[in-house]
């Protein structure tokens, strides 16, 4: 089999950009690691201080640069280290999804989940669910666009 054919038959492995808050979700991901819980390696984690600091621009840029999925992880509502950052992140996500919906861009590629520092298992499960869901959606069509 030629080199080209091999890559065609290879299963699609989505690239997911994950913005995890320093105080909960990042620690949750860390716990998943130290507890040796296995989860798909598709997510590329970027640590941020708070889910409320994730501007819609970060998410849009990842999507437009061709990421197949974008994940935002924050503390559970009420547990924010900065009191209300995740409540604001929640509103911002509602706005972003509304805009993407109006414009007909797949909002299903953007996920937000609340994962605490003790929920290593939940983080691993969420990553597995998201990877499966994005695999079903297929590659991000924007990745091939060269005139954006």
């Amino acid at each position, binding site marked *: 089999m030629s080199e080209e054919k091999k890559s065609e038959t290879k299963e699609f492995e989505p690239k997911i950009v994950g913005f995890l808050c320093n105080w909960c979700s990042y620690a949750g991901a860390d716990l998943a690691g130290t507890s040796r819980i296995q989860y798909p390696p598709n997510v590329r984690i970027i640590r941020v201080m708070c889910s409320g600091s994730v501007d*819609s621009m970060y998410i*849009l840029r990842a999507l437009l640069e061709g990421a197949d999925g974008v994940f935002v992880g924050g503390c559970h*509502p009420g547990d924010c280290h900065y009191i209300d950052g995740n409540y604001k992140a929640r509103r911002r996500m509602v706005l972003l999804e509304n805009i993407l919906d109006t414009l007909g861009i797949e909002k299903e590629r953007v996920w937000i989940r609340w994962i605490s520092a003790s929920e290593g298992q939940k983080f691993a499960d969420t990553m597995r669910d998201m990877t499966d869901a994005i695999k079903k959606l297929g590659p991000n069509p924007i990745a091939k666009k*060269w005139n954006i």
Partner: protein
Amino acid sequence: MTKQKILKVKNGDINSAVNDFLKELLKSGKLSALLVPQAVPSKKVVFPVLVSDPNKLDANVFAPLLPVSTAKMISKITKFQPSDKPIGVVIHPCQIRALHELVKLNQASLNNIIIIGMDCMGTFSVKTYTDLAEKKNPLDIILDDLKSNTDKSEQYLRSACVVCNQPVPVNADIIIGVFGMDTSKEILVEAVSESGSKIIDDLKLESAKDVKKREKHIKDLIDSRTKKLEAFIKDRKKHGGIDGLTSFFDKCVNCHNCMKVCPICYCRECLFDSSVFDAEAYKYVKKSESKGLFKMPTDSILFHLGRMNHMILSCVKCGLCEQGCPMDIDLMDVFIPTAENAQKEFKYYPGKDPKEKVPMVVYREDEYVDVGEK
């Protein structure tokens, strides 16, 4: 509190009737200055002019032109330091809404500002206005329409004005009204706030007798415009996803003029004008290699979507972005449906309630509880 008075119109010249009224406000010292739409010396266009000498006042309040955001001009005047002298600002309804949004965003102060709103019969693009002005006074075109209750001038209106269902000032201090009035004889001056009535109280003006006709005219106008707005949004329901969006913005040259003329965009330095997106040559080559090719300049869709995310909830649909676009991109096609949907989601209507905070700085614990949960 509402006080309705009449300005007498002589020889069908509504401009001099309004000017006499405004001059009186300056002369009496009730206002130290007035920001009014007034023709520049070449007479080609009408711009906001800050007049303090009543003898130099020659306002063209109802001229169908909005070359720059008046709200932004008021922000320029009051942002650095609130005015200590009373300034009257004569502005369009959309700009009143924008002004209240700017106040919420701490970009303007209403201290000593008297908002004098005018009924808006719609505005033409700067090019249409200057072209028409060579032959006849553009003001006459819309006034003829108003008198005969027709919409012949619609062909000249900017697309934002054609579907505008908020042509009457809201949250102003004083309203200068023409809708439903016999403009060959009289126009309406209405004080709707306390500071507004203080200003017009001492003037010897006749009280308005019957405003039923005006109320009906306004209701009919808003109804028909709302229908047009709904049809406009329905026509553009889906933009065909990313393919539709890229072809829509294909002509964009990244000049960012839409952002510069927008009354809501106020950042001193926009992220997109900064060097955040600059990269070394090898990164450009690498990016090209990953797709085989890519268009320069980059990131125009990111700019429009990013800007949209930042300002859409305060978007007053004035259409200045479209007027400012040098490449004639019909920006309202995207911005009006997106603004309508997003503002409906948060039940937030810019300029409607000056006390209500912008949605992105507040939250409730019990809202959107299903977001972030499977």
